């Protein structure tokens, strides 16, 4: 199945279809919606309340398809997004992961109307974008900040001039503009660089200017397209801290798009996995990462956790480990490994950990362990195989996710 897998928590029987509720386990309270806001967002907060039903999702894509026409006469039209539906709630950090070319940039550009869908609808705070005139869409863009992988700062303007630009576009008068620019540069920690030009800044500083510029009009939504992909790990975490502050202190909804899974892991509340233009999975960060349900998502996420052996590693492991090789997904439950060990023991199966990794996601363990399992009379024997099968069956009956690694081909 290549369609999208939506998670249906048993606790909520009213949920249906693609519409997801904002149910972020372990993160409730961190986004204190209104009390935590500073004066900066009070304007956009009240604006967001007007004209849009309060319950409406901040961003909603309904069966969105985007096809680019063929480039030359010989080319074929390219479907960058294929029947994508997703919902982003007010105040959350929504991550979209996927390989290069999966359609991530196309997705964000649809959200602020820089691109129009070939089919389907895009809603922003209850307003349908394609039904708006270009003029009205420009108004919507002023309430939506955007940051970019290559920062895209104006080289002809100073740092302050870059931050002031969206305010000029929105016709904010000079004194107010200066006040806001100063406040934003203070927020990103670059007040002392106001009169420098972008080329005098480091990559991380440039992105901080990009963030200040994106937040200048006090938008309720911030779109981040590979915002940290050009930065080193240290700078990446600084920029992510800043985004987190924008989210928590200013109440800005963030849609962050990246191929870097550790970025998503450290900041997103909920995620969607994009593969070949389709959302193959979406849900809370923990659910999707700890237990991807589709092959495509498992492939993409497995690379992030680096807890599953690659085909090459597996082939090498087989040289020294003739037994059956299975991978067990680590579960967030007490004494998980003790339970594993006693199951193997009671079936007379020798289990050796030959690969694996356990990490932490939203304060809960994630990862997997790869075992070589050997029965009582060796791997090949019928009794041995029987004992291993029995152990695997017992584990599965207990709700443990066990995958037998495929045998070598040829």
């Amino acid at each position, binding site marked *: 199945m290549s369609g999208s897998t939506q998670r249906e928590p048993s606790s909520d029987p009213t949920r249906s279809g693609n519409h997801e509720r904002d149910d972020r386990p372990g993160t409730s309270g961190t986004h204190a919606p209104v009390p935590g806001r500073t004066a900066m967002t009070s304007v956009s907060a009240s604006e967001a309340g007007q004209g849009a039903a309060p319950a409406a999702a901040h961003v909603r894509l309904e069966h969105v398809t985007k096809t680019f026409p063929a480039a030359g006469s010989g080319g074929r039209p390219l479907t960058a997004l294929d029947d994508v539906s997703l919902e982003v709630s007010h105040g959350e950090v929504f991550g979209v992961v996927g390989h290069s070319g999966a359609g991530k940039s196309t997705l964000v550009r649809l959200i602020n109307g820089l691109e129009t869908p070939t089919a389907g609808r895009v809603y922003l705070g209850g307003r349908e974008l394609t039904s708006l005139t270009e003029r009205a869409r420009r108004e919507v863009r002023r309430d939506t900040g955007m940051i970019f992988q290559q920062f895209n700062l104006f080289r002809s303007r100073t740092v302050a001039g870059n931050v002031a630009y969206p305010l000029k*576009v929105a016709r904010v008068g000079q004194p107010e503009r200066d006040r806001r620019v100063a406040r934003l540069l203070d927020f990103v920690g670059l007040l002392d660089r106001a009169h420098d030009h972008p080329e005098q800044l480091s990559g991380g500083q440039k992105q901080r200017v990009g963030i200040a510029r994106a937040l200048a009009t006090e938008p309720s939504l911030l779109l981040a397209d590979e915002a940290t992909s050009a930065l080193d790990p240290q700078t990446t975490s600084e920029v992510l801290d800043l985004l987190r502050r924008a989210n928590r202190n200013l109440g800005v909804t963030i849609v962050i798009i990246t191929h870097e899974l550790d970025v998503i892991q450290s900041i997103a509340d909920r995620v969607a996995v994009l593969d070949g233009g389709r959302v193959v999975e979406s849900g809370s960060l923990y659910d999707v990462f700890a237990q991807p349900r589709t092959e495509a998502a498992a492939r993409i996420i497995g690379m992030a956790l680096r807890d599953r052996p690659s085909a090459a590693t597996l082939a090498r492991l087989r040289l020294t480990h003739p037994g059956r090789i299975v991978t067990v997904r680590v579960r967030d439950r007490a004494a998980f490994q003790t339970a594993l060990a006693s199951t193997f023991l009671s079936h007379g199966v020798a289990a050796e950990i030959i690969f694996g990794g356990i990490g932490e996601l939203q304060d809960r363990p994630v990862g997997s362990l790869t075992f070589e399992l050997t029965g009582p009379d060796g791997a090949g024997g019928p009794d041995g195989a029987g004992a291993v099968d029995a152990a695997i069956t017992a584990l599965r009956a207990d709700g443990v996710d066990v995958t037998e690694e495929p045998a070598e081909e040829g």
Partner: protein
Amino acid sequence: MQEFLSNLSVYRDAIGQTFYIVLISMAAGGVLGLVIGLALYATRPGSLLASRPVFIALNVLVNIVRPIPFVIFLTAIQPLILAAIGTTIGTNAVTFALSIAAAFAVSRIVEQSLLTVDPGVIEAARAAGARPTSILVTVLIPEALGPVILGYTFIFVAVVDMSAQAGLFGGGGLGNFAITYGSQRYDWPIVYITVATIIVIVQAGQFIGNWLARRALRR
């Protein structure tokens, strides 16, 4: 030399006329060329105000006019000059023709300079909700200012050159002076002095252009 000194006031007038022709042509052609260049850039497929018919029409027009040697162009548009200026000879006729020729040359240079601007910057401006025309004026021109200034400097040198050629058509200025008082009278010092004057004007223009471009590029 004696000859030259007696013609000193004529020489001074010739310099004045050259400046008159060059500056008016640069101003009028510069503005017109900027508009055509912006239109070429903006109507290109995929650009801010993409329009295939407009782009193709402008592109063909510029491609036809721009490569025509100025002296031939001047002859070819005589009816137009007559209609606009009332005469086909003299300084104003030459200035008019030169303005049009400069506009077409400038348009290509402006278009090409704008094309060097990082598309990401335009994306950022669009994401901020700016109108396409506002992006052209407040983002693209400032971002491309360095190359645009260098392009105008290049055109300035070409315009000085063409204004001298126009001396053959009774357009005043240094070219005309060199022919009438110099080569036709076999007065070579006058020719050389005129050539040296033109070199000084070109060098000064180039120097100022480079200086302005360096400031725009902050290098």
